[in-house]
């Protein structure tokens, strides 16, 4: 049981999330409803998309703190194209292309010019935001056409097109990293880059691919943002990159690279978003949001860390128990039971 939670950050987080939902439901009846679920889901779409892209980058042992600006820039490209009278399809294509190019720039900086990813993306965080402001001249983009806003409307089954897009991205990325050879390279490159190189894995290409995918997913988030809000302010996406990283950490993605799952991202994002919605429901003033979100984040991580340490100790004790429980008074080496345990088994536990 404990073992299961230790190996599975996602399970811990699920349990905490469900517990939190139940508690809030008890305090504020009416919170637990389909409409809340629908609100949480649609509120989480932007963060979900950004966090998913960030995960791909973190898997390869890099970090991307530019995604908030990529979101803003590509949203602006989308909005300007639409307001210039281009078709929705063309505008979305341009928006995604912007994200891809931004990601490519990040990727090239990191792999070809060997700039550490935190520095490269800190630079482009400012750079992309700057390009966005130059494009708009510092003005907000308003009066977006209805065709875009319609994407955010709930359809017959209670899902908007945007929800479908994000769920589809989750599934595609999830299958890609787990089921395809190239997807597994993402884990390998982050786990031990030198080993990956030795195995003939195209280490640079994988890192660039991760950054490009993150850029495209941030652009999708930009599109969702524009469709949901209906206008694009200057600060669109500001600070989202850090929230995305927090969701990754919550969801069990190791910042050291090489481990993390898409379901983890899903739960992590839902958890963070539901805190916001719960506070609204509990009528706690909005200025408490950041404080409470931060405190809960730390709490979950601490709890998780403690459980993990306890289980590590238990595993170690089990692994070495063979020397202490079997044949207690036989110091010379002749007991077959103790002796026949090959060391590899001990190590593998």
């Amino acid at each position: 049981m404990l073992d299961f939670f230790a190996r599975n950050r996602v399970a811990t987080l699920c349990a905490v999330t469900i517990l939190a939902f139940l508690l809030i439901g008890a305090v504020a009846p009416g919170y637990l409803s389909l409409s809340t679920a629908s609100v949480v889901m649609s509120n989480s779409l932007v963060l979900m998309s950004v966090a998913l892209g960030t995960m791909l980058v973190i898997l390869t042992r890099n970090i991307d703190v530019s995604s908030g600006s990529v979101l803003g820039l590509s949203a602006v490209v989308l909005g300007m194209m639409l307001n210039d009278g281009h078709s929705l399809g063309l505008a979305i294509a341009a928006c995604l292309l912007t994200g891809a190019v931004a990601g490519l720039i990040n990727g090239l900086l990191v792999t070809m010019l060997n700039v550490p990813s935190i520095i490269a993306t800190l630079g482009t965080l400012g750079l992309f935001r700057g390009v966005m402001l130059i494009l708009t001249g510092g003005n907000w983009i308003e009066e977006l056409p209805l065709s875009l806003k319609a994407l955010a409307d709930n359809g017959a089954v209670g899902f908007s097109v945007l929800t479908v897009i994000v769920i589809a991205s989750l599934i595609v990325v999830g299958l890609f990293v787990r089921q395809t050879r190239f997807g597994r390279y993402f884990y390998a490159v982050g786990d031990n880059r030198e080993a990956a190189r030795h195995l003939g894995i195209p280490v640079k290409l994988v890192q660039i691919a991760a950054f490009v995918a993150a850029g495209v997913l941030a652009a999708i988030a930009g599109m969702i943002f524009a469709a949901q809000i209906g206008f694009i302010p200057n600060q669109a996406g500001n600070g989202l990159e850090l929230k995305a990283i927090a969701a990754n950490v919550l969801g069990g993605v190791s910042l050291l690279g090489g481990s993390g799952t898409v379901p983890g991202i899903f739960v992590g994002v839902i958890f963070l978003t539901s805190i916001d919605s719960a506070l609204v429901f509990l009528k706690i003033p909005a200025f408490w949001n950041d404080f409470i979100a931060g405190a809960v984040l730390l709490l979950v991580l601490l709890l998780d860390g403690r459980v993990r340490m306890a289980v590590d100790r238990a595993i170690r004790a089990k692994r070495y128990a063979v020397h202490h429980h079997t044949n207690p008074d036989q110091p010379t080496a002749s007991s077959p039971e103790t002796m026949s345990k090959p060391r590899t088994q001990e190590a593998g536990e």
Partner: protein
Amino acid sequence: MEQNTTPRIAVRVADIWKSYGGTPVLKGINIELLAGQVHALLGGNGAGKSTLMKTIAGLVDADQGSVEINEQTLGTASPSAAQSLGLYLVPQEAHILPNQSVLENICLGLKAKPRALRAEAEALLRDLAVSLDLDAQAATLEIADRQIVEIMRGLIRKASVLILDEPTSALTPHEANALFDRVRQLKAQGVGIFFISHKLREIREICSVISVLRDGAIVLSGPLSDYDDNQIVEAMTKTVQSAQPVKRTENNIDFRTRDVVLEIDRFSGEGFRDISFNVRAGEIVGLAGVVGAGRSELAETLFGLRPARSGNLNLLGTPLTKRSPRDCVDAGLVYLPEDRQQNGLFLEASLAWNMSGYTMHRLGFFPKRKDETSAFDTFRQSLGIKCEGEGQQAGRLSGGNQQKVLLSKCLAADPRVLILDEPTRGVDVAARNDIYRLIRELAAKGLGVVLISSDFDEIEQLADRVVVMAHGLQCGALERDAVTVDAIAHLAFESGSPAHA
């Protein structure tokens, strides 16, 4: 095999030059490997073996010259290009992906179906006579198992050219023999193999051709049977040395009259139980056994890195109850860890910083550079460390020199008892002899030395007394003339596990 048919040339290296920061490492190397040949490559630390092999494997770009694998030229440095031409390098230090399963680690990058790969990996495990849990997380593997994973990577890729860089340095003799059987099979199948090792006995066992590198050039090359061990060692070291490192000094010191410096009484902890022995001043006590016998765990527990369960430890007659590594260092007990990359050195830091690792807390709030420099100069000279200077990064030194830096770090703390865990792993013959000489000198100065080694030759040559461990238990002790390879092996294996037999 070479008389009747003309065998295919598996690797041809022509006039390879390479220098790092103006220092030439390879100076016009020409070497050929035929299919179905096991070609031994020897050389001291820093002779250029690793650079040469990395060049062939596409990991390093040569400044000049060409590499042909299976008669196709390897263009720019690219490990995947080399692999697609049929070459795989099994490096000396295993490259493990700690978060992935063992199976993933072995098969990553292969195109076959997962189920087929698993079957192949299982067959390979049987061939090599090792047991490994393919689904275990690789982070849990011990150093020897990591090396097995690395070897399996090479074998499962069905490479037509294999480079094995000291493949046996972490293997038990049984595992090494199984590997040699496999190498012979591969050879019969026409695989060409470069075999790097410092153990002449191994080389005699499976190699037919030898090349010796020294200072970036090939100084001896030809059929192995043309040379005796002394000629080979001479070629490696330039100076004439005996191939057999100096035998254990046949001193007649009666250690029983000396002070006991370290006394371990019924000591138990994670991975070992009821270990009792003592070490007297000037005595070298070997702690022998196969990998996994619990010796490193014992050493780490003595040094306060792991919790002890029960038992007493007396250092210089006083019990050492509260143990942290710093308490131990201050009390005069110092440990040289087995894995120098992982636990021993700060690879990015300078040599001087590395050497003051154990004594940092004594240097004051503002450590004086002068103190560190003078310590560095002393050890550089007395241990014969080959380096550019105190500012050089430890990670850039060769294995033997890294080990000497590590030893300097231990000695800087001015210990009374030194626990050495595999002090010559991955170290060439010349540097090994240096280290043996140093260990003897230290003992002669009155230090108590505990020597942990899986190399029974090493124990025989150095130890005055030996304690043998198997599976966490003390299974015997030998003294003086009774310390022989056979006697140790008998204790370590006969009383050991049938799983290895």
